[in-house]
């Protein structure tokens, strides 16, 4: 009995390398202070990818419109900072709550139908919000973006500086907190039921898991996390523009998650680091055509088999049953 418990809990235990990774992450804005802005970006993208992982990797919902929640969080946080109060933490909470509410509403749209239906509904939702943000220009600034967002100091003490160190630490802290919560969530019995739903919805239903309710909760939580990422984005850049809703953002996000590995919480973080660095290098070489290389990368990735990308030792030799 005891050994069963040990082996079941094995996967949720902290590995020795995990604190090291986080320590490195938190030390990075200090060590390479000139790159603090990109570290901030990576932390935000990682948080966003973590959110997609909750629904795609753990629950099996294919979404092409996750940017809807990022954008909604970003605009709510920015509007709140502009019109109500500039405190970052309250703004973050507002972004999360707004996106969570939107996610709860949207979760009804992803219950039924095939993957194609879900793809279309999620994509449609992002495009709908894009149109709204574009047309409600008295509120959102339309295609010029929402400008003039000034943030107050964090906790009343730390000003956001131009170097982006404060921003980087702020984003990393939020990422860590949400990561810990997500980790707790996916290793809980609740998380196990999500994975059961992902693997076989019919059987999950047969053993008494309320599939629709689980999907709804997972989708809502993921929306809230994406909203947090959006709020961070708006707060640390002091700006919210229409491209937060764009299709490219959702597609890039999927790529990020797939690079790092789906169904693994560090997948989003690893993917975000690799993707951002790759983006910087490639767009440094060919700024205009870098989508070509991203596209090629995606095609090759899928042809080779995305499970094998991060496991180079399986590249040669027999492909055992993986398609």
């Amino acid at each position, binding site marked *: 009995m005891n050994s069963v418990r040990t082996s079941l809990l094995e996967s949720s235990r902290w590995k020795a390398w995990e604190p090291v990774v986080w320590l490195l992450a938190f030390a990075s804005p200090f060590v390479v202070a000139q790159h603090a802005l990109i570290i901030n970006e990576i932390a935000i993208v990682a948080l966003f990818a973590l959110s997609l992982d909750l629904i*795609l990797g753990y629950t099996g919902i*294919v979404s*092409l419109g996750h940017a809807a929640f990022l954008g909604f969080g970003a605009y709510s946080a920015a509007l709140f900072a502009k019109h109500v109060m500039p405190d970052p933490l309250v703004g973050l909470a507002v972004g999360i709550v707004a996106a969570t509410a939107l996610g709860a509403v949207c979760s*009804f*749209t992803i219950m*039924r*139908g*095939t*993957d*194609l*239906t879900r*793809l*279309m*509904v999620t*994509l*449609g*939702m992002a*495009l*709908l919000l894009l*149109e*709204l943000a*574009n*047309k409600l220009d008295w509120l959102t600034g339309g295609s010029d973006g929402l400008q003039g967002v000034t943030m107050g100091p964090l906790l009343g003490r730390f000003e956001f500086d131009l170097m982006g160190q404060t921003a980087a630490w702020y984003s990393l802290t939020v990422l860590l907190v949400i990561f810990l919560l997500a980790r707790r969530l996916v290793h809980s019995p609740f998380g196990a039921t999500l994975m059961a739903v992902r693997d076989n919805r019919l059987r999950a239903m047969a053993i008494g898991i309320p599939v629709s309710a689980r999907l709804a909760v997972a989708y809502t939580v993921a929306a809230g996390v994406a909203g947090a990422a959006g709020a961070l984005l708006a707060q640390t850049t002091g700006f919210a523009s229409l491209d937060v809703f764009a*299709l*490219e953002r959702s*597609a890039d996000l*999927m*790529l990020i998650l*797939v690079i790092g590995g*789906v169904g693994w919480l560090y997948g989003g973080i690893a993917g975000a680091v690799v993707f951002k660095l790759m983006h910087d290098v490639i767009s440094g070489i060919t700024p*205009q*055509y*870098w*989508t*070509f290389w*991203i*596209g*090629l*990368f*995606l*095609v090759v*990735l*899928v*042809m080779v088999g*995305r499970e094998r990308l991060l496991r180079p030792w399986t590249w040669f030799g027999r492909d055992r049953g993986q*398609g």
Partner: protein
Amino acid sequence: MLTILFDGIAYGMLLFILAVGLSVTMGLMNFINLAHGAFAMVGGYITVVLMQRHGVPFMACLPLAFGGAALLGMVLERTLYRTMYRKPHLDQVLFSIGLAFMAVATADYFMGSQQQIMQLPEWLRGRTELFDGALGMGHYRLFIIAVCAALTIGLQFILSKTRFGSRLRASVDDPRVAAGLGINVNVVFAATFAVGSGLAGLGGALGAEVLGLDPTFPLKFMVYFLIVVAVGGTSSITGPLLAALLLGIADVAGKYFIPKLGAFIVYALMIAILIWRPQGLFVRKGGK
């Protein structure tokens, strides 16, 4: 009022020709192909290049656009797409969106990022006014409707009356049983994919003037094709036809009457329909 309806129908017919190949291939192999718009773009660029740089007449360009896109579709199907059929939907989405990205960047590289302008032949320009101006019909739109209607009737005939059509329908309903009956599903699929890509190419050539042609075409109209397929269902061609007409009319009317909301109406309509009928509006009983 009637003019809007007319423009909507022309737009819808065009969308149908662009999307019908996607609908059939999706129904046949359950493959989510987000790169379908790339074939349409190829057709459009073939037409523009041939007309502007080589002086080929417009009418001769259309079959060439069809042939070029169909050939490309066949080659890609044989080499890349066929390995994807058994993979999960996530892989298919990633793969085809990767192809679409590559197509966008390639078109940008070779053709430049500006919008291409198409010179229509003299006899297609101009407008006819009927009923004291209540119905204004652009000649080119009339031409589009005529071509697309002829194609639709032709497709319907092939599907319902020919031997290939019955094989195709059998394969869509259940590929395994169809294969068991001696139908070579792979060949059926390759042919369908090629024709579908060709039709997209033709649609791209016809639509270059109406929809606008620039390198972002595959991504810009991907959503519209997918709406047609998702709303129309994948088991027949009447479903996508009606969905395309509905979409075309709703889009034109929405943009005319409530320009403030733009494409908002179309997306809202799609989401509402998909919540109401997740499998699409027109699902045939007995299909899979």
